[in-house]
């Protein structure tokens, strides 16, 4: 799967080499200010986790990155593409950015394999035989070989979520966004999905993970961001973040979830 894995950079990647960069992003729905100026940088190959209480703007923030939700002001760049630009090429942006949702959102009328093949074949007009070979490899990668002909309704939540990951990977993205992908799963199936994400991160995929799984964040993330009330309250490497949180709001949140 090396084709899916850009080489991992030096750990001391300078912010100027940030692959995904957010600067002072604001977003409101009507009168409700959801994001109040958030900035963060992700280097190529890095994995960051965004944690925080519900309603703190995490899901909206990552939807801004692939322009599913238009931001009000600020700047987001992905590999040099300005998301808030007037001449944004959404297709080019979304080819670079894969996203996996909490509710899987698989296409219920297509089999697992067809779900994976659909976008590369119909949107990117790639060769069907080549895409099919890639789809089989991806099914193997997410440990679902043998389930190719199953419809989403016949798969468990964890299996559906892994098909959703494979479906996003089939577009050969350079960064993956995960929006609370294990929130709807039971503890057993959660593990399979988290393990799949961990492997992906190890292979060098750039990952931005919104999650409530503190154990996963501590183990997999290179950097952790804590959001509340539409702001990034605190961030740092896992050891520092979980060991010596400075902000009282972070400490209170951690004391509740740990």
């Amino acid at each position, binding site marked *: 799967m090396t084709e899916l894995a850009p080489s991992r950079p030096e750990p001391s990647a300078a912010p100027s080499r940030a692959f995904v960069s957010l600067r002072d992003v604001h977003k409101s729905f009507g009168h409700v200010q959801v994001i109040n100026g958030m900035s963060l940088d992700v280097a190529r190959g890095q994995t960051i986790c965004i944690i925080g209480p519900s309603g703190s703007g995490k899901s909206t923030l990552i939807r801004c990155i692939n322009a599913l939700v238009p931001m009000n002001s600020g700047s987001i760049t992905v590999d040099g593409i300005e998301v808030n630009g007037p001449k944004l090429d959404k297709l080019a942006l*979304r080819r670079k950015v894969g996203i996996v949702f909490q509710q899987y959102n698989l296409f219920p009328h297509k089999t697992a394999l067809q779900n994976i093949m659909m976008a590369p074949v119909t949107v990117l007009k790639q060769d069907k035989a080549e895409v099919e070979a890639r789809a089989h490899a991806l099914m193997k990668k997410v440990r679902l070989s043998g389930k190719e002909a199953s419809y989403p309704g016949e798969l468990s939540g964890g299996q559906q979520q892994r098909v959703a990951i494979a479906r996003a990977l089939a577009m050969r993205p350079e960064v993956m966004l995960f929006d609370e992908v294990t929130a709807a799963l039971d503890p057993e199936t959660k593990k399979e999905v988290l393990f799949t994400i961990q492997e992906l991160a190890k292979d060098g995929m750039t990952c931005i993970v919104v999650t409530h799984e503190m154990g996963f964040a501590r183990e997999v993330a290179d950097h952790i961001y804590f959001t509340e009330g539409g702001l990034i309250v605190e961030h740092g490497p896992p050891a520092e973040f979980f060991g010596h949180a400075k902000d009282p709001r972070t400490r209170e949140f951690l004391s509740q979830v740990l």
Partner: protein
Amino acid sequence: MLRLRDAFSLPLVSASEGALRSWRRTERTGLALLLVVFVCSTAYSATTAVSGHDSIPTVLWRWAPLLLWGFLFNLIISALSMAVGTAAGLPLGIFQLSPNPLVSRPAKLVTQFFRNAPWLVLLFICVLLLPFEFRIGTLRIPFPDWAKAVIGFALPAMANVAEIVRGAVQSVPSGQWESAESLCFSRRQTMMQIILPQCIKRMLPPWMNLYSLITMSSVNASVVGVTEMLTITTQVHAAEGSRPELLAPLYSFSLICFFLYSYPISKWTEYLERKYQVKE
């Protein structure tokens, strides 16, 4: 143990079962009544037939082929109306959901206009105001009454199909649009390849219901003189000397024809509704 389970079973379930049972009973009673009227009136008139007149069964037997031929016209008119209405209603329903107000506004206006217009008035307008032929240069394309009636029924069918399509599309979870968008699908590709295929199951029962309604309203065409079962029934009655004892058998015959055609469709619709409800 059994009693305990009965006591705890949801009252809602037993109530709906009861409703279903009583509905079945009503249905059976209805059909039985219809047949009783038909048979009794036929038998009564047969016994009291005035000498010199043919008996009711003889009359029915003589005219049945013509009456059924008229019924065939009802079926053709309704099937064509539904075909035209569906072909026009499908895009109309999709246009209503367009993000472009220049497309969605007119589509909504057209839909609401024809959905809220009395069917008989639309039929009158189509049959009386449309020309009897179209001329393209020297070519003359005749446009008979039954074709005008098809347009008359197709207009409300179109508006109702448009609403069925709109409702079905809107019932698909927004996550489907979101994930398609994130995978670079255009709006059009999403609609054609992801949303509409999921909608067919949801659209089928109301669509069949609409077809049934159109079939039964197709007798309205008799009001404007289009040849169909009711028109022919009236003519047959006149041809038999307008004997009052013929009224019940002749019109019951057409009622029974419509019932025997529509009832299986409504049963099948019910079955599909139940089947898809369980799956989702």
